[in-house]
């Protein structure tokens, strides 16, 4: 027996659900969806849960993560109830519901919290650097033999190695915070989906191991996305994802290798990786921003405020990154240093907020959802046998 909670729908509207009440349950959306399968029928079922306020069922469901928003459901919906957008809203809602701190919900539903947190962390970053102001005064000795700025000689009296070490420690602290929140959220997700699953099955340990390859496969390729119509979308998304992941890994794990004084030749992997990532990320930002502004295609019809914050932050990060690079190789010392600070003041809050609490978290949730779905479905199949 389930109690109907009509007020739940209002909450989902805050997460970006639009017009979903118009649904008359014809099932067209589910039938046209290339990803919907017998064991996981969506989006109508999830939309129905939303209308009726069946929160537990939604939280135990992986379906929103299995949807890659090709928009076929919305564009053919006879009542224009935007089933695709409800899946998007539910992804935001789920992100918030996995987050035990409650911050995610605040970031999503309150403008004050969303923007405030970013600004606050940005200020903290700037203040940390401000302690060393003014940065090394005499620019003359800070130019390399190849004409570039010595990036690691910010601070008077701190040698390059120590500087990189310091920043690296900062990086690792940030990574640890991110990891802590993300992993605990993931554990929460695991509890909701696998432990309290609707199919009431216990997943044997061997299955965890057997299905693990899926996790990596889907993380690396996002093959499910390509099942949606429009391969170019998959490619664009993949470019962004791979570029972003590469950069993240390089900065957090291989900073001394990446942030070198020496300016390597253009074909050097260090620069090559940077360019590849910049290209992928920038292309994606431009295409998506234009689409969102034009509201072209179902998936860009509705933009939640967090979608814009995300795009803008990513864009500013990339832009300051590019500027930093140009200033450095052209030997503009002060510009380089100040831009570096601004770059970090954007990058750090973006990562801290977006990765565990907001949009970026789908990087982890999507492949995990596929993994968990397989676990539950296969365990259920075993039980049936």
């Amino acid at each position: 027996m389930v109690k109907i909670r009509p007020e739940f729908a209002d909450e989902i509207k805050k997460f970006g659900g639009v017009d979903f009440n118009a649904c008359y349950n014809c099932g067209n959306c589910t039938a046209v969806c290339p990803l919907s399968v017998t064991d996981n029928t969506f989006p109508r079922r999830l939309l129905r849960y939303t209308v009726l306020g069946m929160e537990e069922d939604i939280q135990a469901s992986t379906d929103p993560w299995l949807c890659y928003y090709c928009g076929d459901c919305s564009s053919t919906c006879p009542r224009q109830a935007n089933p695709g957008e409800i899946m998007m809203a539910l992804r935001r809602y789920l992100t918030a519901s996995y987050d035990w701190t409650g911050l995610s919900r605040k970031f999503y539903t309150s403008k004050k919290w969303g923007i405030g947190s970013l600004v606050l962390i940005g200020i903290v970053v700037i203040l940390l650097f401000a302690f060393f102001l003014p940065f090394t005064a005499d620019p003359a000795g800070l130019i390399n033999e190849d004409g570039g700025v010595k990036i690691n000689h910010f601070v008077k009296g701190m040698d390059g190695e120590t500087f990189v070490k310091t920043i690296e420690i900062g990086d690792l602290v940030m990574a640890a915070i991110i990891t802590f929140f993300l992993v605990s959220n993931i554990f929460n997700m695991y509890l909701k989906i696998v432990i309290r699953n609707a199919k009431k099955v216990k997943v044997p340990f061997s299955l965890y191991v057997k299905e693990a390859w899926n996790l990596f496969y889907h993380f690396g390729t996002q093959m499910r996305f390509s099942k949606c119509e429009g391969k170019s979308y998959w490619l664009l998304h993949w470019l962004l994802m791979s570029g972003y992941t590469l950069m993240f890994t390089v900065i957090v794990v291989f900073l001394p290798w990446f942030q070198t004084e020496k300016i390597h030749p253009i074909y050097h992997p260090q620069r090559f990786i940077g360019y590849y990532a910049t290209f992928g990320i920038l292309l994606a930002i431009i295409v998506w921003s234009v689409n969102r502004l034009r509201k072209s295609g179902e998936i860009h019809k509705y933009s939640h405020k967090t979608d814009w914050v995300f795009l803008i932050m990513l864009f500013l990060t990339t832009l300051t990154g590019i500027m930093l690079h140009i200033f450095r190789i052209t030997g503009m010392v002060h510009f380089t240093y100040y831009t570096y600070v601004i770059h970090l003041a954007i990058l750090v809050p973006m990562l801290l907020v977006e990765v565990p609490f907001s949009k970026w978290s789908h990087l982890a949730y999507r492949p995990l959802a596929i993994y968990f779905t397989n676990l539950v479905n296969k365990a259920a199949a075993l039980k049936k046998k």
Partner: protein
Amino acid sequence: MTPDEVKYDVVVVGGGIAGQEAALNLANSDQQVLLVEKDLSIGGHMIHLSKVFPTLDCGACITTPKMSETVRHPNIRVSTFSEFTEIERLSDGTFTGLLTRHPKYVIEKDCTGCQDCEDACPVVVKDQYQYGLVGRKAAYVPFSISNPRVAAIDIENCILCGACERACPADAIDFTQKIEKTKVSAGTVIIATGFNLFDPDVIEKYGLGKHRNVITSMQMERQLVPTRPYNNVLRPKDGKMPDNIAYVLCVGSRDQTLGNPICSQVCCMYSAKQGQLLMGALPMADVTIYYLHIRAFGKGFEEFYQQSIGMGVEYVKGKVGTIDEKENGDLVLRYEDIREGSIKEATHDLVVLSVGMLANPEAGTLFMNNALELDEFGYIRQVDMLRNPASTNIEGVFVAGTASGPMDIPDSIASSGAAAAEALSYLKRKS
């Protein structure tokens, strides 16, 4: 008809069941009526139907006598293959308009409908009265129970070979006929221009035209009538007798993406009817109807729907998402079985798209000085639904039948009674 002005009490535009009914009601009340039909025969959509719900009388058995009553009524003059346009309301509350008679290139009074011209004609084109299932000649009698049952030359496809002229025993073929235009004045005008069928070509995912065993309900209707083209129910691709037929409901209706959010009101019932008829025609066949909601609302409809269930018609709640063709011509329907909440794929060897009604845009183009107001769906707007449902925004112009919205036959007939009664009141008020 002479080119001089001709006077009538009432001009009825449209000779379908609604127009005939309105004309007969007024003629029986001693009014002089001109009935204008743009097609070669009166009868509208109804004459092409097989049996009609919920009584299962054959459509022809109801319509043909009404058609002959109309044509023979001393107070009614019928003008087929004609248009009545440029209608103007005069200051005294009467109307004038232009009656345009297109040439059939056949002298109507001489033609006996023997069809010798048809045999002689070498041109074959798709037969619109059989909804393209078979062909017809360029010299042809529209359909076997047409009224008037006279031949016409389809001049657009005619190659002017003269074979029909030579074959005609009555010398009734006359290629010199011209368009005739007559100014007509009338006390009141009734618009009964009916509806257009939705064309499911625009729904790509259903593959009409691409998958040959996907047909429209009107094509099925033609396969079920006594005057049917194949004398059997066959699937078009290979002529096989189908034994597992699917009906897809709400094709073109209740769909915002197609610009028609309203329900067409008849598709559920005619599908239930065709299901019953198929059970009789192909006793071994399975019929499955995929529906959203069954709109069995009229007198005897619910009972009729229950009867179809009793006869073995299967009803599945869920809108069909896509239709794909297999190599052997069978079709795979993908849908969500709402009751079970699961996705299913079902294979059928014939799929019927139960197409809905759309407004006939013609109604809006008939008037000169006053624009006839239409509603948001393109139907003629009824301005006084709670007092005089047949009234339009132009005083003295009344609407009958599906020109004002989707309706079944009994509702059309009732609304024609309303149009006739309001027109009569209008005439009496003026006199």
